[in-house]
């Protein structure tokens, strides 16, 4: 039987002194109990300490079959997106063949062509680039702003907190998609504005979460210990609080990427995407008018969206299972 402890510096010494004690006590006790077979700390001559670091969470994540599937799916999409210029060089918005070729009709265009004779497969492959770029970039923006605001509000409290909370509330009250549409319409649609706008929509959720975590962790004993040692604010925030607040933020970020991809698709569908780029949403929007005859034009890009978003949701579920038990421990 081994004793497992999580490594906080002082306990290393504690473990050592216990070992010395037990070694002295063991021989005497053993004499009185000749049939003693049950293991316990008194008779152990050594105590091994294992570090409970991040490896446990990674292991839990990697042994979750759903998470692995999600990871594989997502990697497929990423690889396809990266390889797009090589697989389909040139502009996917170019006309290449006669319009309304059905999938399978012409092996050169396995997914057919659209109303303007553009290759559907090329469109989907290139569309992956937009979706992933916007999804990841917008999430990064949202995370940055959200963590910044949330940590300041949660750490300092008082007036600062009150003001920032009101700000978060205001943004959360405005219906996200409507605000998104307004922002993009005002600023003229292109990849940059769409990405920034989505980032502006999503930061409040992260901020709320970060604030809640900071408020809870701020009261913990190890933070008090750090303060009593005279550590400055920056050091406390970055070394004590933030690493422990990360798990729910990590889980949320995977959900945010999925949401950003869906929002970008909806914007492009409505015609508010970058007009110079092909996106899954814009393909669906273009195919809408001919749904009766050429429904594959709406079905196929949609399936691409579903595939990508499912992969992200599987990953986020896996992350949740791996990180959450620890997360709820921290809150206690």
């Amino acid at each position, binding site marked *: 039987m081994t004793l497992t402890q999580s490594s906080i510096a002082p306990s290393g010494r504690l473990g050592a002194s216990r070992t010395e004690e037990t070694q002295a006590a063991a021989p005497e*006790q053993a004499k*009185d*109990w000749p*049939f*003693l*077979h*049950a*293991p*316990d700390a*008194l*008779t152990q001559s050594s105590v091994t300490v294992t570090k409970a670091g991040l490896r446990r969470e990674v292991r839990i994540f990697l042994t979750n079959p759903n998470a692995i599937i999600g990871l594989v799916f997502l990697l497929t999409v990423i690889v396809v997106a990266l390889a797009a210029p090589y697989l389909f060089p040139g502009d996917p918005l170019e006309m290449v063949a006669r319009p309304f070729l059905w999938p399978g009709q012409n092996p050169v265009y396995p997914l057919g062509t659209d109303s303007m004779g553009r290759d559907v497969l090329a469109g989907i492959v290139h569309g992956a680039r937009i979706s992933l770029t916007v999804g990841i970039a917008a999430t990064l923006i949202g995370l940055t702003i959200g963590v910044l605001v949330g940590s300041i509000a949660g750490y300092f409290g008082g007036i600062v907190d009150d003001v920032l909370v009101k700000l978060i509330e205001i943004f959360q009250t405005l219906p996200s998609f409507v605000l998104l549409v307004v922002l993009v319409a005002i600023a003229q649609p292109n990849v940059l504005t769409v990405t920034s706008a989505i980032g502006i929509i999503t930061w409040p959720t992260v901020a709320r979460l970060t604030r809640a975590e900071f408020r809870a962790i701020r009261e913990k004993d190890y933070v008090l210990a750090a303060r009593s040692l005279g550590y400055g604010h920056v050091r406390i925030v970055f070394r004590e609080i933030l690493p422990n607040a990360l798990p729910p933020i990590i889980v949320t970020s995977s959900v945010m990427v999925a949401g950003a991809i869906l929002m970008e698709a909806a914007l492009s569908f409505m015609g508010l995407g970058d007009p110079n780029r092909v996106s899954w949403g814009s393909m669906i929007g273009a195919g809408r008018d001919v749904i009766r005859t050429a429904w594959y034009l709406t079905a196929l890009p949609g399936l691409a969206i579903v595939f990508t978003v499912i992969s992200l949701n599987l990953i986020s579920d896996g992350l949740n299972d791996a990180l959450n038990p620890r997360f709820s421990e921290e809150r206690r």
Partner: protein
Amino acid sequence: MSALLDVHDFSVAFGASQPVKGVSFTANPGEMLAIVGESGSGKSLTALGLIGLLPHHAKTGGEIRFDGRNLLGQSERNWRKIRGRDIGMIFQEPMTSLNPVLSVGEQITEVLRIHERIDRKQARQRAVELLDLVNIPEARKRVDDYPHQLSGGMRQRVMIAIGVACNPKLLIADEATTALDVTIQAQILQLLDNLRRDLNMAVILITHDLGIVAQWADRVMVMYAGRKVEEGLPEPVFTKPYHPYTRGLLGASPRAESGHHYRQGPLIEIPGSIVSATGEKGCAFRPRCPSAQSSCGFAVPPLRQISEDRLAACPFTPTSFVSHAHDASLRS
């Protein structure tokens, strides 16, 4: 007069492990029987078995004769008729054992209206009377309070009120005072004592606190590793313990009168810990027993009748009871 409750060779198994291995005991009206044991001894599972609340996958064996009828194997519907009405049970954690969204009065009237033909007004009146019975001050006002408005001790009183509401013949108290302050503990036990006399109700007190047993129980039964290892009246059991485990338990309890101050030497521990409940040949206590012989490893020692009302599952008679002789002062 046949016993109200006659448990014969009751066992509980979960797959390969058997946490309760053939336990037999009786309980009579107005009597307080204490079941003592450490965690893992099977006492709580026995209690849950008496009221039919074991998990679905548990396999039970033996007989539980209550009022002449065998309860084991009956349908869930029949169990529900008995629960709350003929057999009542109260649990360990008063803080979480009451539904937070229902008022105290609603939870008492619920058990009344399930088992008796009684209308709302009468039920509410009964609830107020019951709250009075368990010594809750201002019962008329308190009946509409919610659990979070009451202290731990008061919530446990409410639990008792619910437990005795339908005048059950048997009340099982599973570690009902463990989570309470010592002074409140004494009040609750006094209350249970009064109630069992007034209502001529059998009470089974499940506990690990020998002090409670010594002070309140009419009979005591010691369980270890799923078996009964000793039984008798408290005084003889505590002054002349036959089973080494009982001796160990008593030795491990510091008592003021024994003159053994903790500074004079270490508290006597029973070394080791309970081993898992999967099949071990021979006496289960053998690995931790100071008097074990090789013969102890061949078969499980049967309960032998030492005198009337006195049983012990150890073939050896202790040579002396010196260290505990002066504990006639146990009962203060």
